[in-house]
């Protein structure tokens, strides 16, 4: 369909309302081909609605959406052969076994690698012969992850994929995503677990109230936010201040004029960036 493709997902000015509720209000999101892109935001920010638009399940009220070079609403079935999806709240047919569901999803997508399936089932330590109603939340999540990861899709859309997984399985999941990236696949990873985004993502988009508030690599985001400068001074006082990177020189100059006994200057942690962006008091 498209010979050379640079962006797996291109969304601009996306709007969607459900009745009086504005779920998406001019959202922008770009996922480059071959990158792992973290899609972050507090609960109710519009992450899942964006994903449902990308999957062609929900029709956008306005804005442009391109997915793998096509229109996700019009070309849904053709595009879906090239993507795999893990829903945020995994529900499974209670009477089917995990193994049956994994096989079925592969067949519905039109393909699937049996040896990869076997390998992933072992790595995630899933019992595929159990009925879905007997699975815990974590095990249901594993079924959806194995089904998605064993596909040969170009794009993985993962909506909070690790909720319910224990730390060991979370580590397995991170290995798998890293492998997917080495294989040249694009990944959209919706999450609010910061450490996960920090460990896996090449780039990050932070949204709040249906709008994009920050996007870029983690280094860029760090650069945008203030440094934390703490100093004890020669006159016995101590200073703690947030400093814009551009003003750092001036601040240091005025501090050394007084005389500095000790000085720390550290970039913001991801946690601080997120908390700042999530906090509703900061204007978007």
């Amino acid at each position: 369909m498209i010979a050379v493709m640079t962006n797996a997902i291109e969304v601009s000015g996306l709007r969607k309302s459900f009745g009086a509720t504005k779920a998406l209000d001019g959202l922008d999101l770009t996922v480059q081909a071959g990158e792992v892109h973290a899609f972050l935001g507090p609960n109710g920010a519009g992450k899942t609605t964006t994903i449902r638009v990308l999957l062609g399940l929900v029709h956008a009220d306005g804005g442009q959406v391109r997915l793998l070079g096509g229109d996700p609403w019009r070309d849904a079935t053709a595009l879906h052969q090239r993507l795999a999806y893990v829903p945020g709240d995994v529900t499974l047919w209670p009477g089917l076994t995990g193994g049956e569901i994994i096989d079925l999803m592969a067949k519905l997508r039109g393909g699937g690698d049996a040896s990869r399936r076997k390998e992933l089932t072992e790595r995630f330590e899933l019992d595929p012969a159990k009925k879905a109603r007997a699975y815990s939340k974590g095990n249901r999540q594993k079924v959806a992850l194995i089904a998605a990861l064993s596909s040969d899709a170009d794009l993985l859309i993962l909506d909070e994929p690790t909720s319910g997984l224990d730390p060991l399985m979370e580590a397995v999941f991170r290995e798998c995503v890293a492998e997917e990236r080495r294989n040249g696949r694009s990944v959209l990873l919706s999450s609010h677990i910061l450490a996960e985004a920090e460990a896996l993502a090449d780039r990050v988009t932070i949204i709040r109230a249906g709008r994009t508030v920050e996007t870029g690599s983690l280094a860029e985001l760090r650069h945008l936010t203030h440094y934390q400068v703490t100093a004890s001074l020669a006159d016995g006082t101590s200073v703690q201040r947030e400093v814009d990177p551009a003003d750092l020189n001036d601040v240091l100059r005025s501090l050394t004029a007084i005389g500095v006994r000790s000085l720390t200057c550290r970039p913001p942690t991801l946690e601080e960036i997120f908390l700042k962006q999530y906090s509703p008091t900061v204007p978007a």
Partner: protein
Amino acid sequence: MTGVGPLARLAFRRDRIGLAVCVYVIVIMVAVNGYEFRKLYPTAAGRQSLAATSESNPALRFLYGTLDGSSLGSLTVWRIGVWAALFAALAAVFLVIRHTRADEEAGRLELVSSAAVGGSAALVASLAVAAATMLAVVALLCLVLPLVGLPAGGSALLALSIGASGLAFAGIAAATAQLTTGARAARGIALAVLGAAFVLRGSGDAGGPSGGTAWLTWTSPLGWVSLARPFGASRWWVLCLPAAVCVLGVAAAFVLAARRDLGVGLIPDRPGRPSASAALRGPDGLAWRLQRGTLLGWLAGYAAMFAICGAAAQGIGQLVGTSSALRGEFTRLGGQSSIVDAYLAALMLLAGVVAGAYAVSGVLRLRSEETGGLAEPVLATAVGRVRWALSHILVAVAGSALLLAVAGAATGLGYGLRAGSTGTEVSRMLGAGLSQLPAVLVVAGLAVLAFGLVPRWSVPGMWTVVGLLTVLQLFGPVLRFSHWLMDVSPFAHVPRLPGGTVQARPLTWLCAIAVVFSLGGLDALRHRDIG
């Protein structure tokens, strides 16, 4: 026992409409039958000849039981006692499982158990709600039946017998709720016990009161209603039997509950296939897998019910012959001059209306898949919306066609075996059953349209339509509704077979309407949001 009160109130709050409908249906069912017998058989001689003919028909004895004299009360017990007890038992089973195992499976009970709620509070609360429901049935029957003209003492014993069989099955359901992890399986076991109770009573009664199998009736909770002989010898002590079953069931439930953890059953889930079979490879395979259990249950029920009703046709002429009023009602309902044909045609109409209800439930599986979040993962694959919808519609339509075929063939077999013309009756009735299909297709098409166009209203809306159609078809002719009103129902336009004539035009129209409805619904589905 802490928390029983709040949980019981919660159950009442969640089920207030359903419970009221159950109580109402059971009470009205019994009262209307008492009233109708007085109207249709006003004289003692008429009642005696009805009693004589019904006693000589084993199929009727299987369906209703044996008669205890020919008083108005005895006829009411004969005609409706078993069925009212069956309804009460059904209500109790659904109620108890819903508030114990189903809540446990859905994880709601876990949330509740973490609050200040005792371990067996849900079990006690569900039994309390079941007991209160049965009490309401008993109280209302004691009030209403004397108004219909039945003796007060007998009315009270009949009411208590019906309520007590509900309680017996509440106890049985409480015990089966402890056995399995899934609510469906727990409900299935309780319903299997109920089915066995019906068959045991039927087999006992079919042989007649002096037959060698009469003792079987004593083994069935459904048989105890007539064995209490409410309007005869008044054996009040028979009420101890359902009470004992209830106590035993509840005791077993408590013993079993103490030996298991929350969320698991005593019978562990059997492991299934670790990989999908060749049949489970596409949307059709999935839809079939999800709906096949329900369809097989319906087919078994249809085969048994219509075979017995067909077998009852042989004696229907004599039975109806004893009441000119009843004969008039039958011919209006079936629209035939021959009374047996009219009865068989009325049966096929019933098969059609009920198959319509099945088709609606099959199509609306789409909606429950959608709201349950199970449509989303399928639609995120290479399966398009129309393809997905068609998979469930296919099962619903093929399933209802199969039901109609089974209804026709089973009726023909039941009637043919007794009339001595099995071959001709089976093929004749098979056609009669299938002739209802175009009307069923219209109902299914309407469900597709509702699902596509007004998904939020599709479930309550379509069940209202099914209810109205049932009232219109079964009571319209008797109550002499206007032609204009009757013509709204698609079932008014299928031929009354056997005996009637087949016209191609209305059938073509019905099929065309069904196709237009379905296409409209599918098109609307393509343009709306999912979820």
